[in-house]
């Protein structure tokens, strides 16, 4: 059987071939699969020596909690981290993509990445998708020019702020920040305030919950405190575990050793590494 035509190499970019079919299905009444959203409280603040980022750990799919302990603070560069709210796939993909772009850029320039580089790469990408990539990010890091904290909205606009919150729990967290933020916080005060803001989101917003993740970035050093606080532990767990009251009755025992029936033959080469 020969090919009827020459294989044209696929052109880059988004392929719109299935859009008509999807539209037709929706018109016929098919419900499109819902997105996995990170309902979410993410925050960032600038303290005396750098930046502290915080996030809750609940990922929701509509009214159901899909992941009780997901990671919303994404790695961008050794000195830059990014919290993501919105559609989980979008935040993962976009931060991964910019993270690898930053790495290649570091190899090419031989210098540490700057936060505004990440900012510009992210906002260019999000703007070109006109808000359809539903990723709301809090980007923070410390580079040669100092500590920086930015928020990036799904449509591509950015803000530069001393403290920022995003996500469904952003109002609850922002109320804590507006009431208690001061300039020149020490590391411990900053961590305490970030944890308080995330807890405010966890307990007052239904889309956020479970644990608190914190990431502290200072000049030349970063600390990723995964599950820094676990204010929703499972209670009432018996330490003894469950014990069955009656043992099952054994009626008959028959043992068939399988080793005699298996033949092992060495064929072919070992897989290459």
């Amino acid at each position, binding site marked *: 059987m020969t090919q009827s035509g020459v294989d044209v190499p696929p052109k880059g970019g988004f392929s719109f071939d299935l859009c008509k079919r999807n539209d037709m299905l929706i018109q016929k009444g098919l419900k499109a699969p819902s997105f996995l959203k990170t309902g979410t409280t993410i925050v960032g603040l600038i303290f005396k020596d750098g930046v502290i980022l915080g996030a809750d750990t609940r990922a929701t799919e509509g009214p159901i909690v899909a992941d009780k302990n997901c990671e919303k603070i994404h790695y961008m560069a050794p000195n830059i981290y990014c919290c993501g709210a919105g559609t989980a796939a979008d935040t993962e993909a976009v931060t991964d993509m910019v993270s690898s772009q930053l790495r290649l850029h570091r190899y090419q320039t031989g210098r540490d990445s700057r936060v505004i580089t990440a*900012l510009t790469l992210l906002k260019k990408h999000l703007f070109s998708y006109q808000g359809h990539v539903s990723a709301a990010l809090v980007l923070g890091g410390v580079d040669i020019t100092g500590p920086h904290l930015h928020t990036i909205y799904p449509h591509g*606009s*950015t*803000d*530069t702020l001393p403290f920022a919150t995003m996500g469904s729990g952003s109002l609850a967290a922002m*109320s804590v920040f*507006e009431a208690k933020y001061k300039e020149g916080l020490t590391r411990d005060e900053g961590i305490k305030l970030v944890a308080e803001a995330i807890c405010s989101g966890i307990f*007052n917003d239904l889309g956020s919950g479970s644990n608190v993740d914190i990431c502290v970035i200072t000049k030349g050093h970063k600390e990723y405190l995964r599950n820094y606080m676990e204010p929703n532990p499972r209670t009432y767990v018996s330490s003894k575990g469950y014990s069955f009251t009656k043992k099952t009755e054994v009626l008959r025992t028959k043992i068939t050793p399988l080793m005699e029936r298996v033949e092992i033959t060495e064929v072919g080469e070992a897989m290459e590494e």
Partner: protein
Amino acid sequence: MFLLPVSFSINADYFFLQFTIPIDNGDSVKNAEADSQRTLYPYVTGTSIVAIKYKDGVLMASDMGGSYGSTLRYKNIERMKAIGKHSLLGASGEISDFQEILRYLDELVLNDNMWDDGNSLGPKEVHNYLTRVMYNRRNKFNPLWNTLVLGGVKNGESYLGMVSMIGVSFEDNHVATGFGNHLARPILRDEWHADLSFEDGVKLLEKCMRVLLYRDRSAINKLQIAKITEEGVTVSQPYSLKTFWEFKAFNNPTAGAEGSW
């Protein structure tokens, strides 16, 4: 119901009558007017109210703004009023509906006074009356577009409750309406405790109102705090809160990041 022959139409092929069937509950003209008298949208609105129980009674705070859509039209609206001897009513939402509710309550208190039996309406009774009124109006698809906060003290017991425009009513130690639900409630849940002193209560309310001032676009920096105790109701004179805008990061925000703000 009877049929009215309205018109004749002679056609080459056939001859027929057209009938109209009159509407059961009156003529169609009155029906159209009835539609335009239902509350469909709020027009002049007040923003949040925040209230807490404290040692001697109830403290309530509200700002004095009335917005007409996105314009700040009125800057001298008192959204908290005393009801009888024992209660204080605060309202957010449509101002005209709030004034209507005050008229209803006026009548209620007047009738109660006319009995002259030494009894007076307490906050629980007023709250119940308001709940019934709000729920009834919602059932007729003609709501009073308000979220009401009712606080009061009678016989040494303080009472603080809330009724929304669909008739949801409950009582609690601290309540907030509108944007206060999202911004003030987290602070109150963390920092309210029983037996707050007057100064601490005012400080707590001011903390909430300051956050609302920063983050609610329809809030203005002119607020009143009302206090109700066994002795009665006092509404303070309007005053404004101090705000802080001197964060270094606000000075030159785009110094490192051209094109952002």
